[in-house]
């Protein structure tokens, strides 16, 4: 198992959208990371309930969404189309309900491919339903069984890629974010989440092998994006959200160490780092995902993307058409300009990349840490450490350091309040022990056992 001790991409010139050292190729010849950026469309139900009585309406909704999107992709002559189906909780709780939707999507994608020659791919993302027991049982019980059964049924039903937005460790992390508690966040990400990822991804990789599908990757959405959304709402400082983002890298990297091959999930902005480290292709999202959440990284997130996503949009009617069709159109135009520039050579692609990067990165520390050069530097620092815990600790120290420097050099302008927070983060980071066991012992004492079962992470003894 590769432990990723060096970067797969070390030259900034090679760090570009559309190209990854280890592209992923599907049976139909579609290659992600092989030179072309494709749109990845995600859509979801409008305001409605999912139960046995509404299944016909559920089918109607997904059928309509996929048909209209495929039609428009053909009309706009997209070079290819990836669709993501993120299961809603009910569709994982009853795995058959999710698999049925997968089949609907698969059929229309196949039909579009055979009738119009549009290359298509389908990513399926079951929901991490383990939290439905509180505190969650991570490795046993009915929810765990149904979750894995959902992966299996979805693979059988026609998924090309399997992903998840797993939430191990989040029981602790939510509070850590809100309390500005760095040690708590490190414990959640570097210890709990990373261990859970290893367990989870061993299983997902197994299922994938068995059914001939590709294990694609996980996202630290419940950590990094929760922080980002809270920072957008001015609930927490932006520098804190930026540091958390970098701290999610070691946790998400575990999936690749266990056999995931990419493309990473769109909402995993840590993908920029994962691509540098693993060389696997990544999905990203930005301005065209404002339908799903506002963000301070609308352009810079395009810099090294191999798939370009809208994250998710509910099936409501806009004046121009149903919202998923509108998103599809926006994604096609966004990828067109990327591919056109790239067709003029590497220098052209880098120019376009540099304008996106520059256009966002001075305004917000969360954008700044997505700069390709910053990501390369920090990624190298992170993997210079041997374990997820030490990598997470290093991520916090290095990210805070880099932000402080950027502010001093005028590449960013942080308010005094933000700067005070940066110092607070560094002070906390410097108190983290170098020894993992010592850290665990220290944390176990303060952990709220109403919220988390440490034994589920192989910890309590």
């Amino acid at each position, binding site marked *: 198992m590769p432990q990723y001790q060096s970067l797969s991409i070390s030259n900034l010139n090679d760090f570009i959208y559309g190209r990854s050292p280890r592209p992923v190729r599907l049976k139909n010849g579609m290659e992600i990371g092989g030179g072309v950026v494709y749109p990845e469309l995600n859509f979801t139900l*409008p305001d*409605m*309930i999912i139960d046995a009585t509404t299944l016909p309406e559920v089918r109607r909704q997904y059928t309509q969404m996929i048909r209209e999107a495929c039609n428009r992709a053909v009309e706009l002559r997209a070079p290819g189309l990836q669709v993501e189906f993120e299961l809603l909780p009910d569709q994982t709780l009853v795995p058959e309900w999710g698999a049925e939707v997968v089949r609907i999507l698969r059929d229309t994608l196949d039909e579009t491919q055979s009738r119009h020659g549009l290359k298509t791919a389908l990513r399926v993302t079951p929901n991490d339903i383990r939290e439905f027991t509180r505190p969650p049982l991570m490795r046993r019980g009915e929810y765990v069984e149904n979750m894995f059964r959902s992966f299996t049924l979805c693979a059988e039903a026609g998924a090309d890629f399997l992903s998840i937005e797993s939430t191990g460790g989040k029981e602790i992390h*939510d509070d850590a974010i*809100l309390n500005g508690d760095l040690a708590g966040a490190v414990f959640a990400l570097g210890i709990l989440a990373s261990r859970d990822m290893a367990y989870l991804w061993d299983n997902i990789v197994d299922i994938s092998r068995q059914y001939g599908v590709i294990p694609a990757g996980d996202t630290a959405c419940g950590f990094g994006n929760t922080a980002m959304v809270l920072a957008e709402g*001015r*609930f*927490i400082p932006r520098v804190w959200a930026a540091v958390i983002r970098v701290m999610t890298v070691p946790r998400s990297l575990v999936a690749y160490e266990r056999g995931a091959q990419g493309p990473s999930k769109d909402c995993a902005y840590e993908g920029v780092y994962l691509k540098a480290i693993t060389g696997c292709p990544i999905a990203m999202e930005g301005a065209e995902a404002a339908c799903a959440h506002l963000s301070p990284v609308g352009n810079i997130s395009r810099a090294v993307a191999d798939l370009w996503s809208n994250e998710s949009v509910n099936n409501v009617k806009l004046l121009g058409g149903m919202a998923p069709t509108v998103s599809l159109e926006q994604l096609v135009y966004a990828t067109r300009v990327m591919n056109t520039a790239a067709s003029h050579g590497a220098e052209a692609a880098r120019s376009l990349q540099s304008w996106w990067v520059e256009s966002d990165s001075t305004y917000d520390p969360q954008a700044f840490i997505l700069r390709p050069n910053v990501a390369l530097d920090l990624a190298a620092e992170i993997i210079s450490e041997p374990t997820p815990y030490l990598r997470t600790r290093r991520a916090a120290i290095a990210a805070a350091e880099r932000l402080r420097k950027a502010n001093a050099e005028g590449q960013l302008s942080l308010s005094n*309040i933000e700067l005070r927070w940066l110092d607070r983060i560094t002070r906390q980071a410097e108190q983290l022990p170098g020894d993992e066991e010592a850290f665990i012992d220290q944390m176990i004492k303060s952990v709220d056992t109403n919220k988390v079962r440490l034994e589920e992470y192989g910890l309590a003894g």
Partner: protein
Amino acid sequence: MDESLKPIFDGILEGQTSEVVSAVQNALQQGVDPAVILNDGMVAAMAEVGRLFEEGEYFVPEMLIAARAMQAGLSVLKPRLAQENVQAAGKVVAGTVKGDLHDIGKNLVCMMLEGAAFEIIDLGSDVPPEKFVEAVRESGANLVALSALLTTTMPNMQTTIEALKAAGLRDQVKVMVGGAPITETFARQIGADGYSPDASRAVALAKSLVAA
């Protein structure tokens, strides 16, 4: 402000729990009316915290520390408030509806309401209608706060309101709703009494609902 209230006010603002506790004890000894300590000292301090938050000076971490300091002070004050029959601003049963595990927004709303001296019974997330009914019945709450973040759990807000009706409790409580996919229009449609797009405005809403 009364001299003896100043250290309470400042202690909460700075989140100094033990200072607040002793300041409350002092004030009580000096014979300051418990209701005055509560309103002019503690709630006023939390209002100032809210203002600092609105202005971008404070973030949630600072608010949480202040809220904890207030809670500590309140636990000293509570027996005396009960003696003198001072009522909480209102009693709120809160929760994220069935099928939905998103709870951060709801938690922030609870925190803000607590700062405004509401008493909170937080049922957590994935709360079925029956549990709301039971909690209202047992606590005698006059407010219910429902949160939903998924388009597929929004309808459970209506189910919950209907369960309250069926249990004959609808007239006893005002129902407020919120969460990212909720709109004013949706709130009206399902027969809720109020909607607010964020936690700060949720406090104003709660006050106006209990006053009505």
